[in-house]
């Protein structure tokens, strides 16, 4: 899933800008995999932000892809052997590691920690659980890049819940149903896609503990990814159901991403297809406005206000493991 890059958040005053906040794009994902979030999510988001700019690309295992990214961004492709200098010269590192080379990620995080540079880590739940637990213990302040919880509509909802606007929650029901996009992820859509919705649920409920149930329809030959229906009975008593799926070829780029949040004193209907204006009669359809979820995530990371760390991602891997076990054994699993 890619984050939307939105219009309307461009530089506004036209005055001579202060030196921009510098962002280093480190790595371009796993060699041989289609997913390329630096190109599709983070570069467009940074480009759309006021006072923030990509200052360089630090290659990972795929130097060619990194080179292409640097050209696209109009920034230098840095020397991987000088990572220490590179991470020390920026305000934020956005890391898309090669999942098959965790040692390289560890080295990068050590260099960032030494330099005091914050890190936004793409899809940490794609790492194996042991590696993620280790990273969470050693680098707790690294921010997992689960951007939907920072979507403006979700942020509003989260604040309403946090301040008691709904009373006590009793249920969260959501759908994250996407088009083909990157195609099915080889590590499965629970870790790749459903984790976003799980993180939104966790952002509303708190760390998730309880009982898990999942039904998973396998990826199809037509390019459709797994279809996942999951249920969580979370303590003290919040029922969560999420439909997560990826349609196959020909499904286009549209998505359905919504949450119904039910409480003792009211409910919230949250649609991540907004804020937007609609164009009737033209080809444009919906025109989003305001900052997108990825921009908000980057801004919060820069501000140090995300209040999330790798421990949260590691906790979600325990939920995911229970869901995987439930689907395999056709029974409810405590987590």
């Amino acid at each position, binding site marked *: 899933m890619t984050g939307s890059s939105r219009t309307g958040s461009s530089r506004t005053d036209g005055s001579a800008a202060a030196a921009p906040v510098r962002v280093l794009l480190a790595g371009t994902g796993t060699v041989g995999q289609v997913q390329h979030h630096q190109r599709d999510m983070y570069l467009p988001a940074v480009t759309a932000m006021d006072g923030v700019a990509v200052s360089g690309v630090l290659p990972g295992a795929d130097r060619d892809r990194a080179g292409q990214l640097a050209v696209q961004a109009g920034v230098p492709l840095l020397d991987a052997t000088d990572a220490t200098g590179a991470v020390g010269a920026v305000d934020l590192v956005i890391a898309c590691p090669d999942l098959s080379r965790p040692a390289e990620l560890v080295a990068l995080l050590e260099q960032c920690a030494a330099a005091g540079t914050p890190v936004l880590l793409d899809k940490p739940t794609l790492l194996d659980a042991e590696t993620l637990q280790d990273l969470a213990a050693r680098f707790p302040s690294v921010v997992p890049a689960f951007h939907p919880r920072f979507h403006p509509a979700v942020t509003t909802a989260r604040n309403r819940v946090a301040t008691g606007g709904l009373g006590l929650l*009793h249920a969260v029901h959501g759908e994250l*149903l996407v088009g083909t996009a990157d195609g099915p992820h080889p590590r499965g859509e629970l870790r790749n896609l459903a984790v976003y919705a799980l993180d939104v649920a966790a952002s509303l409920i708190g760390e998730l503990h309880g009982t898990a149930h999942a039904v998973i329809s396998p990826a199809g030959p037509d390019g459709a990814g797994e279809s996942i229906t999951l249920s969580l009975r979370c303590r003290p008593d919040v029922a969560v159901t999420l439909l997560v799926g990826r349609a196959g070829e020909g499904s286009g780029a549209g998505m359905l991403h919504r949450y119904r949040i039910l409480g003792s004193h009211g409910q919230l209907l949250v649609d991540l297809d907004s804020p937007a204006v609609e164009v009737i009669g033209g080809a444009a359809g919906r025109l989003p406005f305001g900052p997108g979820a990825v921009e908000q995530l980057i801004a919060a990371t820069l501000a140090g206000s995300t209040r999330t760390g790798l421990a949260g991602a590691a906790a979600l891997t325990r939920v995911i493991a229970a869901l995987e076990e439930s689907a395999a054994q056709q029974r409810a699993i405590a987590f």
Partner: protein
Amino acid sequence: MTVTTPPLGIGIVGAGFIAESHALAARAHPGLRVAGVYDRDPGAAAALAARHGARAAADLDALLTDPAVDIVVLGTPNDTHAALALQIAAAGRHLLLEKPLALSVADAVAVVAAFADRGLTLLVGHTHRHSDYARTVSAALESGVIGTPRSMRIAITAGWIWGNWGAWVLDPDRSGGHAFHNGVHLYDLACWWMGGPVERVFTMGQKITSAALGIDDALVATLEFADGVSAVCEISRGERPQTTNLFEIVAHGTTGTLVRRWNSDGTVQLADEFCGPLPAAGSSPFTRQLAVLHDAIRFGTPVFPGNDHAVHAIAVAEAVEESGRTGDVVAVADTRGAAA
């Protein structure tokens, strides 16, 4: 349609909430008329009969032996359905039986067999199947608009808990719980749209309005079909605001997603007395439902949905209630071949 034979007479048993809808539907069909009404409350029976030009029967036997009554529409509390249905079959009358068919698979099978054995027509009131939206969803899925459906959500939520502590729906022995009382609508739709029987269920039930409730007023069940196809069926009477009704359908397939949004009917009221969507003034599903019954009796066409589907919905409801009690995944009884 040209009607050359006298209209079939309908006897309504149970003059409660839903009876008026059936009476209006009967009056809208040229081949049907309301002939009689019976209710334990003579006043309620008399009032309903008077509104629709029918006679109020002094007791059930009087209605069942009235030669003007060809069809019974039964809308009594759920725990009476099976016994009354068997009585109606024994009296040789056709039956439109409000859902649920019964409160157990065994009773459901017995009722279906009683009508089949006598050559009588039984139609169970899975009224949603006859509504405009449901037919549209069915046709769209059938056409392959989203490829092969793989997951679904059907959510009907509101806050109008029934009446007061004396309401029979709140008594699990009388209503069977939420799975039987309203859930069967959703389970039947999911089976229809997903095209197959449910194999297993997992339920999360909650008592939202009061911890003292005997039933779960919020009930979320995940139905699992073959090959990992699934449907989340959510039925709730415990939401706030109390008067806000929401109804949503999401179906996800191999090539896309179909959505009936909460405001898909087109009108949303934001007023002091009520905030929420209002139903569109479309076709009456009750009229279509009675037309199905009429045609089955007059012309021998099959009832829709078939009674095997109604029995399966009861099997799903049984499993949903058990899963809600135990917290376990529960297998659904195989009812294939158990009902004609």
